[in-house]
């Protein structure tokens, strides 16, 4: 897919995969919402209360900085902000392409998939079959267990197990592949553009790098390695990098220039209040989220590995060193590419 590029590979695949993913999601969500009361001895374990488990507000949780960080990390991850994906895709747009409508549509469809479809499936189904305590355990068990342990167990309890099992795993596969190619594309484009490598060569190098770097996640899953990678790579650093991107875009590049760029070819006008929001509110809000998390007890415990069993600490430390190593290598590569460019220009 990556070998065939953005248009011939990623776009062609996503053109089929994304509608299929939405259709599978609608079918599974409809099945879950129509589960009724599977156990007549437990009439409270039904889909409506399952939705309540997810939607009944508990405003005291808003005091927990971890919740704010997780929410910010989640939205940046699903919108591919802070990991270079949107920047890479945006670099292929024409100057007159409508980024306002495209951005709004991407955000809307993303929310449809994750809030309406995603929010109706896993936790609701877990509540119907395992009750409130079971659903809480399931929610805490992490995304890997949710997808590969809980959902198959639930499908085993309903008719047409094979059909819904197929739809579920096909949906996970499509979601995983479409995300993976998007995540790999910035690296491919970087090697191609900055080091003048052919796409074949760039993909060959990255295949080896990805293969080596994913081994700890496979062999040390039980040691908390995936959770640690997910926290730093998929939550904390996303919020950190998105904060840096916001500052660069609105302060270094300049708000007026940014505003003009956004509206090139756009039919919709962004309300002017967003100039103020993007320049002042967003970076400040993100900095407050990051700062309050780092200073909170939960944040300090995470950083100091307070809740990690002693036997797992070397693995967690290893993950952190690996992530720092990746960042250091990337900084060096960017510096070399920059120098090469400056030399070429001079």
């Amino acid at each position, binding site marked *: 897919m990556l070998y065939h590029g953005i248009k011939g590979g990623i776009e062609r695949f996503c053109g089929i995969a994304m509608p299929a993913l939405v259709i599978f999601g609608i079918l599974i969500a409809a099945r879950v919402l129509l589960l009724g009361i599977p156990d007549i001895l437990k009439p409270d374990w039904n889909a*409506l*209360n399952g*939705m*309540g488990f997810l*939607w*009944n*507000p508990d405003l005291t949780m808003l005091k927990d900085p971890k919740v704010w960080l997780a929410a910010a990390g989640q939205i940046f991850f699903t919108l591919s902000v802070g990991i270079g994906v949107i920047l890479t895709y945006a670099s292929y747009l024409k100057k007159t392409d*409508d980024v306002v*409508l495209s951005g*709004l*549509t991407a*955000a*809307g*469809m993303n*929310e*449809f998939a994750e*809030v*309406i479809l995603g929010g109706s499936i896993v936790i609701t189904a877990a509540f119907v079959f395992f009750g409130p305590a079971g659903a809480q355990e399931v929610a805490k068990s992490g995304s890997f267990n949710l997808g590969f342990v809980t959902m198959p167990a639930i499908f085993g309890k309903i008719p047409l197990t094979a059909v819904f099992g197929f739809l579920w795993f096909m949906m996970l596969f499509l979601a995983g592949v479409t995300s993976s190619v998007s995540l790999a594309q910035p690296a491919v484009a970087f090697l191609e553009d900055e080091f003048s490598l052919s796409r074949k060569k760039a993909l060959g190098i990255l295949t080896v790098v990805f293969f080596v770097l994913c081994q700890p996640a496979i062999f040390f899953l039980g040691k908390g390695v995936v959770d640690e990678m997910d926290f730093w790579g998929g939550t904390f650093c996303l919020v950190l990098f998105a904060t840096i991107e916001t500052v660069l875009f609105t302060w270094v590049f300049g708000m007026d220039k940014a505003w003009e760029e956004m509206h090139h070819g756009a*039919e*919709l006008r962004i309300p002017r209040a967003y100039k103020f929001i993007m320049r002042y509110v967003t970076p400040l809000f993100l900095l407050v989220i990051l700062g309050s998390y780092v200073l909170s007890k939960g944040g300090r415990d995470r950083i100091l590995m307070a809740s990690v069993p002693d036997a797992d600490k070397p693995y967690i430390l290893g993950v952190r060193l690996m992530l720092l190593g990746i960042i250091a290598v990337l900084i060096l590569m960017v510096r070399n590419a920059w120098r090469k460019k400056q030399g070429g220009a001079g």
Partner: protein
Amino acid sequence: MNPGGWLFLTISWSFIIVLCVYCLYRIFSKKEGLD
């Protein structure tokens, strides 16, 4: 589900569905305009 849950669900789902319909309408009406 308590009334607070219904309120959050209704507001969120309505907002998302209206946003998606509006965006898709704008995209397809734009494409037709170009043809």
